[in-house]
């Protein structure tokens, strides 16, 4: 039962990942692409968590933590760059 649920969740988050990649390629504006990148990293965190359960290995939590950290910082930096023209000011 757990294996079936894991496969369903893998399929759902994998499809979500592909749909976000479609929006990333399609555009049409810069905030759309940043939003698609934001969704991509959240889906990647979810896939890493699912891999941790499937492989029964806690090492994937470090992967998920690093993706969450870097994804959050990069989304904020890109959005500030589009909104104001610079990142630190």
């Amino acid at each position, binding site marked *: 039962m757990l294996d079936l*649920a894991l496969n369903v969740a893998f399929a759902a988050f994998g499809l*979500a990942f592909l749909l976000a990649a479609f929006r990333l390629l399609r555009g049409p504006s810069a*905030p759309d692409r940043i939003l698609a990148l934001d969704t991509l990293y959240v*889906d990647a965190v979810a896939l890493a968590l699912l891999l941790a*359960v499937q492989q029964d290995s806690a090492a994937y939590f470090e992967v998920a*933590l690093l993706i969450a950290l870097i*994804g*959050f910082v990069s989304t904020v930096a890109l959005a500030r760059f589009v909104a104001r023209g610079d990142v630190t000011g």
Partner: protein
Amino acid sequence: MRAAIEVLISLLLVAGGFFGLVGAIGLVRLPDFLMRLHAPTKATTLGVGGALLAALLYFVGSGRWIVHELLIAAFLFIGAPVSALMLAQAAIRARLPSRAPLAEAGEDEERPG
């Protein structure tokens, strides 16, 4: 007891996958940016929260307590509203077109520019 925890983990996984998929479909299908902003920031955050809770239950059920889970949850649930606010500011600054009726009622001089 173990079987009950497995049923709970399975339900959380399926619900998490469902909400993650709903968020991505909204990201692709909704007509303008300010509407598209809603789908991933709410539905996808809930979906990844379900996956996070399922993984936490799985590892607690097998006797290993993982502190990383709490850090991941903190970054995801603090990060989602902050990045949504930043993206909304970027969209207002870029004057992206909106189909929402309230945005048509107020004229352009009310927007910060």
